[in-house]
């Protein structure tokens, strides 16, 4: 056991513990600000996982996009909702066995299906440069990139359709 105690495995255990812990807080907490903070921590640990898998650029993008973008949106939404209701919103859950069974069942199903297929080995890969990334995104994955830009446009228009254009 001690022999395996490398820097990499410390990172693995640490990441596992923090990501599961923060996710659990998001799912179970009754306080809305704790939820927002734990969600931020979770987003950061996801970035940590990407780093662990040697995808530094992805990790940076995750931090910018989620910890920086989505989390701010969530905070705005929370503050807006707070303003619309009197007092501190307390989050409620309906803990029931069937939800537990479904969630555990699905996780079990995935893990059992992959049981024999996933080798226990650490990912070791070359670090792609951003130039390579750009070449791929503008080369073979150009259709995907175009589709994502269509998605962004569509998302903006959807928000416009729900909110915009009100005169009077």
């Amino acid at each position, binding site marked *: 056991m001690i022999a395996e105690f490398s820097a990499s495995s410390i990172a693995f255990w640490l990441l596992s513990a923090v990501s599961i812990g923060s996710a659990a807080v998001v799912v179970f907490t009754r306080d809305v600000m704790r939820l927002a903070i734990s969600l931020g921590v*979770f987003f950061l640990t996801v970035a940590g996982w990407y780093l662990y898998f040697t995808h530094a650029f992805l990790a940076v993008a995750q931090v910018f996009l989620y910890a920086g973008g*989505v989390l701010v949106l969530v905070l705005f939404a929370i503050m807006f*909702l707070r303003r619309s209701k009197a007092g501190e919103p307390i*989050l409620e859950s309906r803990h029931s066995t069937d939800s537990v069974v479904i969630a555990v069942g699905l996780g079990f199903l995935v893990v059992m299906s992959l049981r024999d297929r996933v080798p226990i080995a650490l990912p070791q890969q070359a670090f792609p440069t951003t130039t*390579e990334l750009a070449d791929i*995104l503008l080369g073979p994955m150009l259709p995907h990139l175009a589709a994502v830009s269509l*998605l962004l446009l569509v998302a903006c228009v959807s928000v416009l359709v729900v*909110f915009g254009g009100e005169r009077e």
Partner: protein
Amino acid sequence: MNFVLVASILFGLGLYGVLSRRDVIAVLASVELMLGAATVMLVGLAGLPSLSSQGGADPGTIEATGLLLLVMAAAAAAVGLALLVAIARSTGRTRTDELTDVRDRP
């Protein structure tokens, strides 16, 4: 085991949150947990050396795929939050058990 187990646990936690949380904002946060877990699973699995030696994906493709999924999920999250704010503004209701106007009436 390894990160597959962790990602599955995260996905299951997110799913549990979606199913059990009463407040839509918490449900949306749980959806983010699911998507994050799934992306971690993708990046991790695709990078395993024994699998990529079969002629699988190169690191650049994995990273590009992950990036596109990130942007996709973020865009969807923004629309979801906008919908939540819209309905909160018009009805003041933000809980799933309050949002049951549209349904079959016995």
